[in-house]
């Protein structure tokens, strides 16, 4: 059966989408007011205010553009780190921290753009009462605490610790078998493609074309490789081919495999979609929520690969290992 307990996983997948959307929103709110306001901002932009509310620190305009994204950096890193968290409790903290970072990015970008809009010099930037400074930090904090509630409630206990032994296909000495399957989730790639003209249009007018152009190309390449995979199980190895072209692949030699199972996965189990790697422990290739193949290696590493028809794959892997063991 390739269908699974869809309602629960559909909700998890939607929640993951929401998290990604919020992180993206933080980025957009952080960078776009500054980008849009760029021609109307002074050469030096006020970035710090005294307790009395007067601007007392500035930064060259072209560097201010990178300030909000710098704040988003930690959000992205934290999100990636959450996949490495060995304890669910640690993973639960990481998500709100990432959200805080993204929200801070958004609020800060908006406030800086608004305060400096249309001013001839940074010194004549709008006065900002201390309450503004407080809300710049307080609003993201409230937002993050909200996510903490969600993370604590929704974060599943590690489902991979205890799994019953997987199915095993009985194979005689002369049988020849082969399994192939795939998984895809092209929605994000489509979004990126649709957003490209808009982003590039804005960037071109603000002389930031090269930066956004590079980012876009990088995102496209990453998404292309990680939103479609083809997996095959042969007598020598399990192979994962990334992207539509399949030029990059991961190979798991059968000799190094201990056992395989099929299980249900949610992107939240690993902090999101994509290629998730944890030193010495796990590698996860999460393309979508749902049925996945778990391969346990002799080295102790476990691979989790979201792919359709995973039970048949696990069954063949176990059957091939068993046959090798018998004839060995």
């Amino acid at each position: 059966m390739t269908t699974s307990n869809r309602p629960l996983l559909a909700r998890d997948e939607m929640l993951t989408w929401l998290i990604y959307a919020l992180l993206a929103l933080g980025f957009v709110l952080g960078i776009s007011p500054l980008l849009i306001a760029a021609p109307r901002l002074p050469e030096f932009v006020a970035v710090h205010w005294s307790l009395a509310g007067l601007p007392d620190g500035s930064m060259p305009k072209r560097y201010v553009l990178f300030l909000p994204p710098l704040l988003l950096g930690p959000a992205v890193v934290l999100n990636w780190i959450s996949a490495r968290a060995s304890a669910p409790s640690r993973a639960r903290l990481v998500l709100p921290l990432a959200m805080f970072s993204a929200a801070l990015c958004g609020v800060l970008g908006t406030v800086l753009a608004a305060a400096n809009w249309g001013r001839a010099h940074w010194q004549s930037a709008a006065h900002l009462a201390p309450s503004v400074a407080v809300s710049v930090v307080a609003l993201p904090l409230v937002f993050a605490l909200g996510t903490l509630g969600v993370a604590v409630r929704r974060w599943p206990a590690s489902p991979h610790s205890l799994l019953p032994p997987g199915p095993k296909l009985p194979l005689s000495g002369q049988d020849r078998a082969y399994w192939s399957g795939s998984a895809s989730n092209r929605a994000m790639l489509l979004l990126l493609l649709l957003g490209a003209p808009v982003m590039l249009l804005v960037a071109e007018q603000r002389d930031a074309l090269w930066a956004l152009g590079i980012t876009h190309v990088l995102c496209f390449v990453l998404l292309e490789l990680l939103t479609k995979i083809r997996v095959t199980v042969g007598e020598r190895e399990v192979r994962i081919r990334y992207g539509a072209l399949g030029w990059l692949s991961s190979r798991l030699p059968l000799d190094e495999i201990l056992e395989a199972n099929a299980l249900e996965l949610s992107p939240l189990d690993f902090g999101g979609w994509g290629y998730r790697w944890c030193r010495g422990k796990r590698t996860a290739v999460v393309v979508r929520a749902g049925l996945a193949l778990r391969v346990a290696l002799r080295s102790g590493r476990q691979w989790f690969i979201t792919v359709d028809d995973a039970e048949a794959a696990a069954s063949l892997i176990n059957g091939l290992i068993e046959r090798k063991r018998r004839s060995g």
Partner: protein
Amino acid sequence: MLIRVQPQDPTPLYTQIAGQVRRAVMEGRVKPGERLPGARELADALQVHMHTVLRAYDELRQEGLVEVRRGRGVVVLANGPDRSRLLELARALRAEGARQGLALRELRKLLGEVG
């Protein structure tokens, strides 16, 4: 999709392969629009001649279960599972009808009478 062949079985290899694909489609293990493994790849993996795999794929294509698409390879069609079985039954019906000397027209009448 799992494909297993048993060379020691008297059934021809290409029939075994075609049968495995049919079963996979019927069980829903491969979805419409999904590609079948490339002929060379499958032939290597099963240690059979590429010609054997191509023959199996061709049989499936003639049944209407799969389609060859330029650049994509051999792709499972939407009306796969039921049609395959139906075609199988239709063939058997025609064969039996012919054996009993019934013309197509009479077979159709027979089908109309049933349930």
